[in-house]
């Protein structure tokens, strides 16, 4: 995790760059999924994306993360990314602990254990992902994203499959992390309450093909 002060200083020097998303069109075969989805994310800003199931939220995140490159338009993004996929996407043949340390070679075993503790998996370090419940797997995926010091944090419905108490714990953890590392954050959620609590700005995808809703809903509470 690193000392917040140092990380903050490094960040200031390195990455006070705006993340520009400029997706002109994204199609799958004949069907157009995204149409002119254009927005910026400022450094340290948290942006939530809302929208009905199947509209194209995950598709948009994959484009922003650079996984999907078959689209019209371009995206400017930093190199240090972290991502929480909609499904856990762990290495099933490596233990929970190794799933953290392999992805972050700089992370010591002790730090990794501490991180597992924070997401409530302190006693599961040696288990394989298949031996974890789905909620535990999702928390492991969260821990993996938080263990680096990303400049851009992308999360696809990070807090589903969790009971209210655990969800609340994960939300606070995320808030703390964002406050410490100050990454630019882009996340998808279906829960308006989560968006209100975490996001500086809320974008909504609408229509077919999906576009950003004409009036961007702004979160009055923060910034």
């Amino acid at each position, binding site marked *: 995790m690193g000392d917040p002060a140092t990380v903050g200083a490094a960040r200031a020097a390195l990455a006070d760059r705006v993340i520009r998303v400029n997706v002109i069109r994204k199609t799958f075969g004949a069907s157009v999924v995204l149409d002119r989805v254009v927005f910026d994310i400022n450094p340290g800003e948290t942006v939530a994306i809302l929208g009905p199931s199947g509209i194209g939220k995950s598709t948009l995140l994959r484009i922003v*993360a650079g*996984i999907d490159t078959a689209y019209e338009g371009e995206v400017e993004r930093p*190199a240090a990314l972290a*991502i929480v996929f909609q499904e856990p996407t762990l290495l099933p*043949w*490596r233990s929970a602990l190794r799933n953290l340390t392999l992805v972050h070679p700089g992370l010591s075993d002790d730090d990794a254990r501490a991180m597992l503790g924070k997401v409530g998996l302190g006693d599961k370090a040696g*288990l394989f992902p*298949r*031996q974890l419940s789905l909620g535990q797997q999702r928390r492991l995926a969260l821990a993996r994203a938080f263990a680096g010091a990303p400049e851009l944090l992308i999360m696809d419905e990070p807090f589903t499959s969790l009971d209210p108490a655990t969800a609340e714990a994960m939300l606070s953890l995320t808030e703390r992390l964002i406050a410490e590392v100050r990454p630019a954050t882009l996340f998808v959620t279906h829960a308006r309450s989560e968006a209100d609590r975490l996001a500086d700005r809320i974008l909504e995808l609408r229509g077919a093909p999906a576009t950003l809703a004409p009036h961007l809903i702004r979160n009055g509470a923060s910034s």
Partner: protein
Amino acid sequence: MTDKRTVTALSLFGLLLLWFAAAALTADPQILPSPAALVQPFLREAASGELPYHLSQTLIRVAWAFCLAMALGIALGLLMGRSERVDRWLDPWLVVFLNLPALVLIVLCYLWIGLNEVAAIVAVTLNKVPNVATVVREGARALDPQLDAMARVYRMGRLTRLVHVTLPQLAPFIAASARSGVAVIWKIVLVVEFLGRSSGVGFKIHMFFQLFDVAMVLVYALSFIAVMLAVEWAILQPWERRVRRWRTA
């Protein structure tokens, strides 16, 4: 554990019984001698040092060819499975070399490189690489794109990705081609040895076949099989169990 060993022992014993029965039915020790009739010749060959010598020669060749063929085959298969472009270019070559008769490759190697050890090993390796590549290519095509995306986004190192993301997914394919690989390699080594080497199990088997001495053919063949069984139990199966642990946990 002990239970497993018992089953294995019983199973091998069953095979032996079957052989006894078949030998009794055939009733011609020149066609199929009974297992008991092999003990004497086996001990004689073992004591004379002939069997250990030729067996070790063959094993060295098999080991060399195996390592070379697996390394090259996995690399090639991975490359072809992951890149449609490379695949399109190399696929016809793969089919040609896959189906080139062992005889042709072996003879050409002997004639080009000479009647020596290098030629023998090169010939076997060339025969086997397309096989491994074919199997591993299928594995590479079935790789999970999601894990790949994850590894790329998190900028995992090349080597880490290979060892911890790619190879574990290829493990069943590698195990399959390793196991059937040793078998194929050894069969080709047999041909290589009888076509142009002066030592090795293949050389002896062919000689005894010319003499129609089925008992000695079996002594040599089974000695190699015994080594393979040992390799299977001492190396391959423990390795597989370890690699497969996450599936059964």
